[in-house]
């Protein structure tokens, strides 16, 4: 060591004991020496005084040793007991007063207990265990003792021993013997702790005794806890509580249970503490921990906030809070916060299930319809038209049924959820897996009913229902259908891997046949995606969903599955988009709502308040897709007998009927208004009806009628469009839209619609008449020039013609007998559709800007290009800027352009040029031009083309070109 290497500088010899060089007894050496043992020796020499007394050096040596090894035994010195001088005055005071108060307490208590003592003693004695078997003798010599004892037990005893024979004891001895046969094992394994009584018999104990025992058990618990023996700790805390329940012990027990991850008990205990002491910081902290582990992050955060409100500096609480927030971010996707994750899990299954149910039922229904109406004239009608044409009763019923169905599934969701929660509380540790099991069980039981349907489905398949040709989605080849149903079965029984194989085969089979049945293929992909999702194979799931969606855009299930898969993969943005899309299609999917909300939170955490900016655009779901879903959702419920809760069903029925009642009333009121000609009010009534039931097509067609009467062609057209999206063969809607188009002077569209009406029902005379009329108009339109010549007079007269319209209505109504009941009003309404076909706007030469404005407005309202052309013909182009003043608008410009193109450019290109030229000089021209749409610009371009073709002395091509530039072409 270091000391040996030190040369003997002084050579004065060594100490008597230990033979330490004298030179080592030196400040410098001691300061540098790192060998504790050597220093200890030096210290001993110094203390002994054999080399002389050096108190200073001794102190330095002690300090050095303490510095190197604070636990060194050499440092232990005999010390006198501490006295008052070793403490500060306060400490001394505290020590003494504490003892004094204890003494007084003890003395008082002693007196009391002396009075209390007596008869309880016997009672206590009765509870005592029996006396140990007498005269058991045990050798202290290990070699012989076992044999000794054995023989003692097993051989007959002498008489004196029999006297003391204790049957019970002997019996228990025999038991023990059995135990002893494997006593070796028993010795070396820890005795089970279950053997510790959980309760302490406190009969006859005074309060003081109870406190004493409770405290003692608590201390035992604390010690066990300190050693890491949490099970034992919990046992002793329980014992303590059995004597006197105190908040502190519950609190400690909670902590031990947290260590044992017995979250549920810990939670209970924390709550007991908080019942006793509502503000207990430790309990709050512990409850927060428990909640955190149970993944009830919100409650955990609440608790932590409570802690922080009391102790703002509590670093533990702060830390946990941060931790939770991180977890909230990080954990959401996969295992998720069980509270919510659980929900997804259930709902996911719910959804996939009910979704499947829906899908299958829808298919089935369609097929049935197809079968029934196999003679129906149009495939479209078979698919969707029939219900649309059907009476309102049936439809609204179906709708109500749909709602009820939804409600039922909701209820089931709830029950599953509560079950899930229960499960979780029972076995919090592995509650996820448990839960899975439970859910699977649930799934299976629930899907039994479905499988029957599925079978039926397959049968009807093989029955060759394809021949009906009605349902587009039923054309699976038998092999594929078989594979699919097998896959479904496997899926239901939880064998997702094998289900994947079946679906894959089915997919091959179908895609081998070409792309003739995209819907089926889409469903297969979607099903396979579900399997992948179950397996946790998110990337494959997403791929399949993508394929399914390519084949059938905006179909619900693949979207939902893709969303879930994305969420699992923490691709929150994509997941969010998908959920939102799902909600556009069907806003009643609670799971999607929840998930979207959850993801929103996550994204806000992740990206801050501007998270939306980072989102890819959410695709707009076409209305058709939305409504298609609705059909799918509402129709099957009609066929599906409700299985749950008759009362609820009845109540639903009541609500539905109430709503129906109100709906009918409003509609009748609307019809009445129509009868009296108050179309405005009627339209309002119908609008109210729509609030109650957005699916009722008749209301839309009726309102369209009102709008037609009010010349609100645009609105009328919109209503008809809406109806036709739902029921693409609604004959009335077509008829009225035709009229609306006619009003909008879109004669071509009008003709098309009339043709559709006649296609559906060739016997509608009104349609035939109208068609003739419109075709004439169309013809007229094309030869507008002549038409413009015919117009005379200065007044615009819009004649209201009560014409054959009424009759038309009646005919229509009779052709669809189902309708009559509900829309009696329509028949009675005198029709006053303006017949602009035979009429022309009378245009006079405007004298001032006001006149001009009036005429333009009138022209514009009717989109009467001919009249406009007239106006332009009689107006001096040079005055245009003045007349237009600052009223030039896009519409006006457009109608000018159209009029010029259709009516004037052909006849008088010079005039057209002049108009264009002066139009460009008008106020606001630039602005209006800038606002023109592409299509409108094309029209302007066309006009220029016409002008460039037809030469005139009024302008040269160069002029035209420069003007073109002015028009930004």
């Amino acid at each position, binding site marked *: 060591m270091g000391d040996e290497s030190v040369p003997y500088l002084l050579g004065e010899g060594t100490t008597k004991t230990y033979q330490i060089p004298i030179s080592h007894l030196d400040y410098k050496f001691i300061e540098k020496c790192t060998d504790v043992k050597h220093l200890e020796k030096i210290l001993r020499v110094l203390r002994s005084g054999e080399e002389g007394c050096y108190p200073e050096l001794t102190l330095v040596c002690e300090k050095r040793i303490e510095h190197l090894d604070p636990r060194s035994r050499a440092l232990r010195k005999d010390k006198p007991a501490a006295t008052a001088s070793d403490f500060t005055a306060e400490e001394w005071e505290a020590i003494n007063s504490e003892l004094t108060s204890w003494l007084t307490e003890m003395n008082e208590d002693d007196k009391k207990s002396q009075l209390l003592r007596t008869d309880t003693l016997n009672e206590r004695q009765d509870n005592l265990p029996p006396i140990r078997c007498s005269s058991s003798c045990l*050798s202290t010599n290990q070699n012989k003792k076992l044999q000794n004892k054995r023989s003692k037990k097993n051989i007959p005893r002498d008489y004196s021993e029999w006297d003391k024979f204790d049957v019970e004891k002997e019996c228990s001895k025999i038991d023990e013997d059995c135990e002893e046969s494997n006593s070796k094992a028993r010795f070396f394994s820890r005795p089970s702790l279950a053997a510790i009584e959980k309760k302490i018999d406190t009969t006859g104990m005074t309060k003081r005794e109870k406190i004493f025992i409770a405290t003692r058990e608590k201390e035992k618990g604390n010690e066990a806890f300190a050693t890491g023996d949490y099970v034992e700790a919990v046992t002793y805390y329980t014992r303590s509580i059995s004597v006197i329940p105190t908040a502190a012990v519950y609190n400690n027990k909670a902590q031990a249970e947290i260590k044992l991850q017995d979250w549920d008990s810990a939670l209970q205990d924390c709550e007991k503490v908080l019942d006793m002491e509502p503000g207990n910081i430790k309990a709050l902290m512990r409850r927060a921990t428990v909640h955190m582990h149970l993944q009830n992050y919100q409650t955990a955060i609440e608790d932590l906030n409570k802690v922080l409100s009391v102790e703002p500096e509590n670093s533990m609480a702060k830390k946990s809070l941060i931790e939770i927030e991180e977890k909230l971010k990080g954990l959401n996707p996969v295992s998720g916060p069980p509270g919510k994750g659980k929900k997804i899990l259930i709902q996911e299954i719910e959804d996939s299930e009910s979704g499947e149910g829906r899908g299958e039922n829808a298919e089935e229904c369609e097929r049935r319809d197809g079968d029934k109406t196999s003679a129906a004239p149009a495939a479209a009608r078979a698919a969707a038209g029939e219900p649309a044409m059907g009476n309102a009763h049936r439809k609204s019923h179906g709708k109500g049924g749909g709602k009820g169905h939804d409600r039922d599934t909701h209820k089931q969701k709830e029950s599953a959820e509560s079950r899930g929660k229960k499960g979780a509380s029972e076995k919090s540790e592995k509650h996820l897996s448990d839960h899975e099991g439970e859910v699977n069980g649930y799934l299976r039981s629930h899907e039994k009913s479905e499988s029957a349907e599925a079978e039926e489905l397959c049968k009807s398949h093989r029955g060759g229902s394809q021949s009906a040709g009605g349902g587009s989605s039923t054309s699976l080849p038998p092999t594929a259908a078989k594979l699919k149903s097998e896959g479904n079965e496997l899926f239901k029984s939880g064998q997702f891997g094998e289900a994947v194989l079946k679906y894959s085969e089915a997919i091959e089979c179908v895609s081998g046949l070409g792309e003739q049945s995209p819907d089926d293929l889409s469903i297969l992909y979607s099903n396979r995606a579900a399997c992948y999702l179950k397996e946790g194979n998110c990337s494959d799931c997403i791929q399949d969903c993508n394929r399914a969606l390519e084949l059938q855009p905006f179909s619900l299930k693949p979207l939902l599955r893709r969303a879930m898969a994305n969420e699992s993969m923490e691709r929150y943005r994509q997941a969010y988009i998908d959920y939102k899309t799902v909600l556009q299609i069907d806003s009643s999917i609670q799971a999607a709502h929840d998930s979207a909300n959850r993801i929103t939170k996550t994204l806000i955490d992740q990206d801050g308040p501007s998270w939306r900016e980072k989102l890819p655009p959410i695709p707009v779901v076409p209305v058709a897709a939305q409504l298609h879903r609705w059909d799918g959702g509402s129709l099957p419920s009609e066929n599906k007998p409700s299985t749950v809760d008759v009362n609820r069903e009845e109540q639903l029925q009541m609500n539905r009927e109430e709503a129906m009642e109100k709906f009918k009333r409003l509609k009748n009121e609307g019809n009445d208004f129509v009868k009296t000609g108050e179309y405005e009010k009627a339209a309002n009534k119908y609008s109210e009806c729509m609030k109650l039931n957005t699916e009722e097509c008749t209301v839309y067609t009726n309102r369209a009628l009102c709008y037609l009467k009010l010349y609100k062609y645009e609105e009328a057209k919109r209503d008809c469009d809406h109806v036709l999206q739902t029921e693409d063969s609604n004959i009335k809607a077509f008829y009225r839209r035709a009229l609306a188009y006619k009003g909008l002077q879109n004669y071509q569209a009008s003709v098309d619609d009339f043709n559709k009406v006649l296609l559906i029902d060739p016997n509608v005379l009104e349609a035939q008449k109208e068609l003739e009329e419109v075709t004439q108009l169309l013809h007229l339109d094309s030869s507008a020039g002549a038409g413009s010549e015919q117009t005379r007079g200065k007044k615009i007269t819009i004649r209201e013609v009560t014409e054959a319209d009424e009759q038309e209505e009646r005919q229509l109504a009779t052709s669809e007998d189902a309708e009559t009941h509900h829309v009696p009003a329509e028949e009675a309404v005198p029709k006053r559709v303006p017949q602009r076909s035979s009429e022309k706007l009378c245009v006079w030469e405007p004298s001032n800007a006001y006149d001009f404005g009036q005429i333009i407005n009138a022209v514009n309202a009717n989109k009467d290009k001919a009249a406009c052309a007239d106006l332009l013909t009689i107006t001096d182009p040079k005055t245009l800027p003045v007349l237009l003043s600052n009223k030039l608008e896009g519409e006006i410009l457009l109608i000018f352009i159209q009029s010029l193109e259709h009516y004037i450019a052909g006849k008088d290109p010079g005039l057209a040029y002049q108009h264009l030229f002066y139009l460009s000089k008008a106020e606001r021209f630039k602005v209006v031009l800038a606002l023109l749409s592409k299509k409108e610009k094309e029209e302007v371009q066309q006009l220029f083309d016409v002008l460039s073709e037809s030469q005139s002395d009024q302008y040269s091509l160069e002029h035209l070109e420069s003007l073109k530039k002015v028009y930004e072409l």
Partner: protein
Amino acid sequence: MSAALGPERPQVVAHAQQALSYTVFDCKWVPRSARLLCLGSAARGTGVVQLYELHGARLELLREIEKPKPIKCGTFGATSLQQRYLATGDFDGNLNIWNLEAPEIPVYSVKGHKEIINSIDGVGGLGIGEGAPEIVTGSRDGTVKVWDPRQNDTPVANMEPVQGESKRDCWTVAFGNAYNQEERVVCAGYDNGDIKLFDLKTMSLRWETNIKNGVCSVEFDRKDINMNKLVATSLEGKFHVFDMRTQHPTKGFASVSEKAQKSTIWQVRHLPQNRDIFMTSGGSGSLHLWKYEYPAQRSKKDSEGSEMGVAGSLSLLQNVTLSTQPISSLDWSPDKKGLCVCGAFDQTVRVLIVTKLNKI
């Protein structure tokens, strides 16, 4: 341990002391009171029991009882909290149980041993330890006997060397493992350094070892739990702490030993409120306060896959020297944490306060 050495280090304060006119062998706190008992031998060869009460910093003698034979040891361990009967062992080998309210006649008396009863311990009373109240006595006659106060004349268990074996002087006995009604062990220490562990449930010798020097005192850290630790002190100033949780088939229990001083360690007593703190009293009139620190893993597997214990470490919290004579007896107050009484051969009994035990 570093904390123990800082300003938070416990201090031992000599709160009160009382000079006695006889040799004190044992002193005991009367449970649930501020009174204490001193047991000893008067100069004329009789036994003395003195009852003192603590009044401030003064010990007030309440009662003095004289008995024919010097009293070596006593315990309250087998009595109920209400009765608080004292069990004593005397030089003549008698086990007596006294009602201190009426001490003229013992409530129980048996001539248990042929020679002096060196040590006595009780369990099943005071709410400490499940099962029947029992008293164990260890004697110079080499036997260790377990008594049930409800059974007269004969012990309920007798542990003695077989015929022909040399009898060893049993210096100390202790109960332990009484965590339920069946389980119970007795540990005995002998003058030759033997430590024997008797299992009263199976009536077998569960374990034995030898620590080379006479065993002056053994004590389990707690009697009423699944046995956890055992401290055995020796004649030569060493003491051993055994981890009693894991027993290896051949190696027995793991232990750590520490040499406190050069002289005999007469007594070891665990703090009733914290089993990991204990005080040893030494031949040189000194007291040492120790803390046992558990290892990270209390057991490990040996090469054959058997569980074996791992001993922890010991740290000295405080040491004081009170006397030049040995401190032969020591007792912590079961009711007041840190309050402690010790009797020394300088015929003085001292009441000590150990501070800051909460902060360890």
